[in-house]
């Protein structure tokens, strides 16, 4: 593909990551995909470093809610158009007061990904002034919906009344499948 001078070998990048940044660990998912776990304060330098090395395409910025560990994992997926290698860069932030720094200056589109993450997880991104504007949801007044402690079924039952059926079709289906014992009428 495109010949570029900063297209250095994968091994080199991985080893220099470990040398340059303390506390960074790498993990191989498959030959063309690596996961890099960084401490929060190193994340943005790591991302900048990787961008310079040719991993310039931000596929997605998203978040995972590890409720048991009380952490949010922020995931930045970087792709190299030259070598076809994907780096999954991730970092953990505290779940109680989730604040992180924006990467808007590195990837302009991140502005919208960050708004997305803020809307669905409640993670604030310092430096992104639009971060708290609603994007997809409208007049939302509950917990950020993608958090693990938010129950969509309960919310749906509370706000959106369901049709009432005379027959409990799901129960009957369970009887037919043999999950529970019972009689089917009609």
């Amino acid at each position, binding site marked *: 593909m495109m010949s570029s001078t900063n297209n250095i070998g994968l091994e080199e990048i991985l080893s220099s990551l470990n040398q340059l940044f303390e506390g960074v660990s790498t993990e191989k998912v498959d030959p063309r995909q690596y996961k890099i776990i960084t401490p929060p304060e190193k994340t943005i330098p790591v991302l900048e470093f990787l961008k310079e090395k040719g991993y310039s395409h931000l596929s997605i910025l998203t978040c995972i809610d590890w409720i048991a560990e009380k952490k949010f994992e922020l995931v930045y997926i970087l792709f190299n158009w030259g070598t076809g290698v994907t780096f999954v860069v991730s970092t953990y932030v505290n779940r109680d007061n989730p604040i992180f720094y924006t990467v808007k200056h590195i990837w302009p589109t991140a502005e919208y990904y960050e708004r997305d993450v803020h809307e669905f997880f409640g993670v604030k991104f310092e430096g992104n002034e639009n971060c708290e*504007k*609603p994007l*997809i*949801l*409208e*007049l939302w*007044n*509950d917990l950020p*919906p993608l958090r693990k402690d*938010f129950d*969509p*079924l309960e*919310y*749906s039952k509370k*706000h*959106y*009344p*369901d*049709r009432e059926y005379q027959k409990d079709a799901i129960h009957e289906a369970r009887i037919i499948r043999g999950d529970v014992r019972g009689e089917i009428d009609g």
Partner: protein
Amino acid sequence: MSNRGNVKIDERTVWEKIADQLRSRSMWMLHYCTGCGAVELPPSMTSRFDLERFGIGPMATPRQADIFLITGYLSVKTLRRVIYTYEKMPDPKYVIGFGSCTINGGIYYDSYATINRLDYYIPVDLYIAGCMPRPEAIFEAFTKLMEMIRKGEANGWKRYKENYEWYKQNQLRSLGEVIIHDEFHE
């Protein structure tokens, strides 16, 4: 509201019967893709199935439309616009609920963003089952709706007027606010 005298909802004068004949043969549907069912509309409108045979065609604005197709699930954000649009349409107007999602939420029964039952918010004349309804099902539904109009059974618009307060109350219950507030509406 309910004490409107003895005028029955499905009583029609001779003129209205003639008018209904005309209405059933020229149905303009609103060109508003509210959900994924709309993906089967172009095939049914274009050369293979050709809806225009029955005098059915898309119309650009709600002012000229007779039928409102709610094509699939409705997120609350869309529902606000749907109510607004529905009230903009001139009487008599008909609503077809497209697919399982409008009947009882379908596959999105536990979603926090979509409503479960369309006829709770606006009157629905006809439902089409399935996800998503095939063009043949769409034709079946339109033929059925034509019959209903001719017989004077498609009275959703009258019901909406009769029970306006009930509908409004339901809308407010699920939406909180029907009026849209955002950057643009200031």
